[in-house]
């Protein structure tokens, strides 16, 4: 086991960097595991790590059809925050943020979690009231929130358009502990840490069937052969419907594409994460200097990791009305992630009607920041059979029962978000 440190970087540098070992093994699948996790993205890898670390369960395989971290963990806008207000979401994201705050030491991997502060701007009295309500929920949860008036925003973000903007800035809700992290590194850090505890990470291994006998899961069929398992977890946001269908399940999920954008590198100019309130636009600047920003869903069911111009243009127009100083920054790359959209906009971490089969899906557009708590909660559920207290409301049957978690208030039907 090779620990990473500044000293290690130094000694390796002196010896030509020839001594670095593989960050994780590339094992062949064993015939049987205690737990098989379908999906080698952030949530699946984190689940494996917390199974090993919190519960001592290490006879675990993570099956990934492509390369580790090939899904949304590597194609998001990297924002980490705990600013929800519905009970059920609030405690979960609060827990996640606390895990983020110790992640580097936990994993011995620098995921560059940067608590640079997040500001949600509001542009009307009604929006202010909604954000005040949210901020008070954050305080009640033990997290941090500060209400900024227009002048307070101006002091922090003087480059916003405080002149003749169509929707003037009334103020903002400031979340100092919000920020960003280096997305790929999160996957790699969890992968390396889980691997070091003995978890088998198996890439290029697509699950083609889920074996169920007498109402109990017994294993999976894969492109690399059959693998028996006592427990199987489906952690495949973006493909949840297809994987669940292998077990005969129909999910309350529609898949949508969400685009994001990065500009060419620029010297530091935006020091926070900023979110516009009258259009879909949020932005931060990466440590490399690119402005990383995104907007709303393209709004049609899609499995193509790419989008179309109407939303691109909306995002750019919103950027121009909010902070016209970025006009001359040039968009370098755009990409799309496939979002598991649930009817109420909140996730699902639950058992299923099949014994030993677990489901983690429905992350909508908020999966990245949830990775640590999601892995923690799912590992707890798999290990103990009981939902973790922070994720107890993420139930699969809540749509049928009406115990909804509609944070945005846009409706608990598809496509109203």
């Amino acid at each position, binding site marked *: 086991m090779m620990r990473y440190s500044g000293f290690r970087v130094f000694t390796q540098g002196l010896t030509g960097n020839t001594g670095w070992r593989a960050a994780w093994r590339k094992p062949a699948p064993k015939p049987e595991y205690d737990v098989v996790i379908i999906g080698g993205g952030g949530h699946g890898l984190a689940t494996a790590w917390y199974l090993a670390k919190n519960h001592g369960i290490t006879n675990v395989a993570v099956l990934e059809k492509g390369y580790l971290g090939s899904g949304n963990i590597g194609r998001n806008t990297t924002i980490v925050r705990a600013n929800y207000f519905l009970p059920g979401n609030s405690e979960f994201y609060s827990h996640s943020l606390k895990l983020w705050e110790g992640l580097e030491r936990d994993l011995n991997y620098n995921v560059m979690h940067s608590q640079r502060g997040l500001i949600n701007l509001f542009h009307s009295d009604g929006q202010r009231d909604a954000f005040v309500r949210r901020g008070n929920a954050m305080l009640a949860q033990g997290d941090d929130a500060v209400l900024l008036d227009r002048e307070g925003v101006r002091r922090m973000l003087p480059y916003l358009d405080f002149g003749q903007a169509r929707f003037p800035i009334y103020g903002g809700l400031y979340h100092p502990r919000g920020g960003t992290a280096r997305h790929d590194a999160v996957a790699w850090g969890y992968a390396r840490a889980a691997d070091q505890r003995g978890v088998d990470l198996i890439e290029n291994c697509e699950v083609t069937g889920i074996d169920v006998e007498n109402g109990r899961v017994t294993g999976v069929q894969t492109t690399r052969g059959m693998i028996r398992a006592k427990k199987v977890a489906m952690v495949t946001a973006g493909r949840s419907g297809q994987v669940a269908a292998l077990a005969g399940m129909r*999910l309350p999920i529609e898949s949508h594409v969400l685009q994001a954008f990065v500009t060419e590198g620029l010297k530091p100019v935006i020091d926070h994460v900023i979110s516009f309130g009258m259009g879909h636009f949020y932005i931060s600047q990466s440590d490399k200097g690119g402005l990383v920003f995104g907007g709303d869903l393209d709004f049609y069911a899609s*499995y*193509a990791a790419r989008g*179309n111009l109407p939303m691109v243009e909306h995002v750019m127009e919103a950027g121009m009305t909010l902070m016209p100083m970025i006009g001359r920054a040039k968009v370098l790359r755009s990409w799309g992630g496939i979002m598991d959209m649930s009817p109420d906009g909140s996730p699902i971490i639950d058992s299923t009607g099949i014994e030993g089969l677990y489901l983690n899906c429905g992350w909508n557009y908020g999966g990245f920041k949830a990775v640590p708590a999601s892995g923690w909660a799912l590992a707890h559920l798999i290990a103990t059979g009981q939902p973790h207290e922070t994720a107890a409301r993420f139930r699969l049957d809540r*749509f049928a029962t009406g115990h909804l978690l509609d944070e945005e208030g846009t409706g608990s039907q*598809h496509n109203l978000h």
Partner: protein
Amino acid sequence: MRISCPCCGPRDRREFTYYGAADYLNRPALDADASAWDDYLHLRDNPAGETRDLWYHDPCGTWVAVTRDTVTHAVIAAEAVA
């Protein structure tokens, strides 16, 4: 993406509002059991491939059922809901 409005012909995606799978056309009766309503409101095939979904052409007010591919974004057919 371009969709043919049955009234207006091929138009840019920006002119349409999306409302998801065509399942929403099959509204259960008031007294249907709860699972029928759960199916109707929430559960989806969500196919990676051909699907049929609902789009509203805002300029003219026509609801359109569109057959298209969720992987390639190819639009195969479009017809008015009524």
